């Protein structure tokens, strides 16, 4: 069952990902990205990473993607009501893709990285909370500080400048 679902979600991720790359319509690309990210969340669920799946939905599909689509909505449309795009920077894009593929290949073939036995659902949240506030407290606090700086920065940039 898990294997079958893995193939279903995998196929959906690949199809939506490819469609997202090859479409010219920017808003279609944004919604295909949402579909792709939701399928990744499904992938997490079938491998018992429930918390990660929820975070994936909340942050990527519910947060970042909506900001992205919101940005597209505020741009100008062409005469036929579409926002079209073309492929630019093919060389650097290809470079990034090849680099990413090599990195993934290195990770998969590396014997040191592998699946650690899954922690069950109820324990998961407690475990994550405990580790975040003990083992990874410095990183956690630094990220919190960074987000605060970003928030203040965004509020400052968004403010109407009275002296201009």
């Amino acid at each position, binding site marked *: 069952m898990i294997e079958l679902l893995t193939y279903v979600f995998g196929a959906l991720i690949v199809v939506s990902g490819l469609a997202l790359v090859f479409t010219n319509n920017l808003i*279609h690309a944004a919604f295909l990205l*949402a579909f792709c990210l939701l399928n990744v969340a499904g992938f997490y669920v079938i491998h018992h990473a*429930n918390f990660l799946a*929820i*975070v994936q939905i909340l942050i990527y599909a519910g947060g970042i993607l*909506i900001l992205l689509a919101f940005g597209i*909505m505020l741009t100008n449309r062409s005469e036929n009501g579409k926002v079209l795009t073309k492929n630019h920077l093919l060389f650097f894009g290809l470079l990034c893709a090849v680099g990413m593929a090599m990195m993934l290949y290195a990770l998969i073939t590396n014997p040191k990285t592998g699946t650690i036995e899954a922690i069950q*659902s*109820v324990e998961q949240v407690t475990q994550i909370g405990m580790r975040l506030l003990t083992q990874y407290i410095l990183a956690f606090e630094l990220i919190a500080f960074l987000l605060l700086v970003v928030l203040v920065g965004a509020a400052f940039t968004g403010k109407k400048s009275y002296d201009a």
Partner: protein
Amino acid sequence: MEVGPMGIFQTVADLLKMLQKEDLIPKAADRPIFLIGPILVFVAIFAGFSVLPLTSETAGAAVGSGVFLLLAIVSLDVLGILMAGWGSNNKFSLFGAIRSIAQIISFEIPLGLSVLCVVILSQSMDLQEISRQQGVYSETPIYLFGIRSSGVSVTDLGGILSWNVVRSPFLIVGFLIFFISGLAESNRAPFDLPESESELVGGYHTEYSGFRWGIFMLAEYGMMLLMSILGVILFFGGWNTPLINVGTLRFADWTMGVYWEGFWLMAKALMLVFIQIWIRWTYPRLRVDQLMSLSWKYLTPFALLLVFLSAIWRLLMF
């Protein structure tokens, strides 16, 4: 002109009428997006119902982080509204969608924070566990107003005394924040700017007709019911009875059991739905700037303060 005694079949009749109508698609609309939008709104909101516990024995998906999942899935309905607003290729729809998204994203913050208060106090994100802690089935002793040093244990009294709003009285403010944000999340008056008919015709669903329009309307009411049930579970004891055991009159024990529990949950939730409808016909609509300042300048700071208070309450009193 109502169907049935006191018009109770009116909604059913309306739906039957809408099913028969033609599914109009504007010529200039972005066809696939226009068609998928309402379905996504429907799926997002009705998937939220999947984690709700109805009685102590009947519950939806037993997800350890249920309330978190619920908020995450419900936040996806913004995507559907965005699709509807953009796909219609109509300026009223686009403005409606932009307003709706700005509103939902802003009010998700106080909503999430007020839910977080309850999560801190009950130390669980499982909705069934949160419900169980607020009644006679609680495994940990409950003290009057949560004050352990008073030594007054109300665990076997049960009823209203063990609900979260009574266990930690400041949660009544948390509930107010939750309720106001919930109204805004479901685009109900006084926060119905996205579909304000005097300015935007119909907002993001201007171009829809027939069944697809019906989905938007029912999704709004579904969201109201979902928010009400969630509010009842988090603050008003979920499926627990409000009656208290008095000596040999075991009112709380008598009114618990699968059917009673379902009755209490739905009765309390429908009460909140009634208040939501009542508010709609009582208050005028807010302006956009008032809406934003309500969320960012009043609700969010108060909600942050409440999260802080909940943490302290948890440390001192439990």
